[in-house]
């Protein structure tokens, strides 16, 4: 018989997997680099948070949970930072975001580098 903490950890891990899958599909399907950053960055952060929180609930109050908390902290700080740095580098390099009708018509993105 599973306790409530176990059930909560299952729910966290499974919903985190769903978010990770949604992020992967968005990364493949969205039309533009900046929209793809949105898909990858946001769902990556939420998905990894949910999965690691589920593992922490499963682990209990041990050294492994402390390691998972460190992992959570590193992912929380580095993932938005690298998304931001990437978007800034692309924008300064001159990659224009799709706007208005272009988002519907899917113009060809200029070949940069």
């Amino acid at each position, binding site marked *: 018989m599973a306790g409530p903490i*176990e059930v909560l*950890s*299952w729910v966290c*891990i*499974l919903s*985190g*997997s*769903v978010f*990770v*899958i949604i*992020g*992967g*599909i968005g*990364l*493949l399907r969205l039309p533009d*680099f900046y929209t*793809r*950053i949105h898909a*990858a960055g946001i769902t*990556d952060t939420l*998905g*990894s948070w949910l*999965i*690691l929180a589920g*593992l922490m609930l*499963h*682990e209990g109050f041990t050294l*492994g949970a402390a*390691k*998972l908390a*460190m*992992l959570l902290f*590193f*992912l929380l700080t*580095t*993932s938005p*930072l*690298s*998304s931001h*740095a*990437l978007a800034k*580098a*692309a924008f*300064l*390099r001159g*990659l224009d975001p799709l706007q208005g009708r272009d988002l519907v018509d899917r113009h060809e*993105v200029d*070949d*940069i*580098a």
Partner: protein
Amino acid sequence: MTGVFAAATAAIVVCMGLTLARSIAGPTVFDRILAVNSFGTKTVLLIALVGYLAGRPDFLDLALVYALMNFIGTIAAMKFTRFGDLAGMEDDDSGEVF
């Protein structure tokens, strides 16, 4: 519990496949860097989940190292793309403020 870990591992492997497809297809170099960064984040999750699936939570140390290496790799690749050099900060177009 093992079933939950196996399902999450399968989901992450599928998502890594999608990310790899974007990193091969991506029209600009930034798409590829984004995809590789996302792939690295998923590798961290995969290592942690496989550790619990195999009953060896010591794998978490590997996941920690991989998380840090992934961040540094992304910043290095981005800086190389921006400046064409890992050491210099010279800007090729004038008039931009950092």
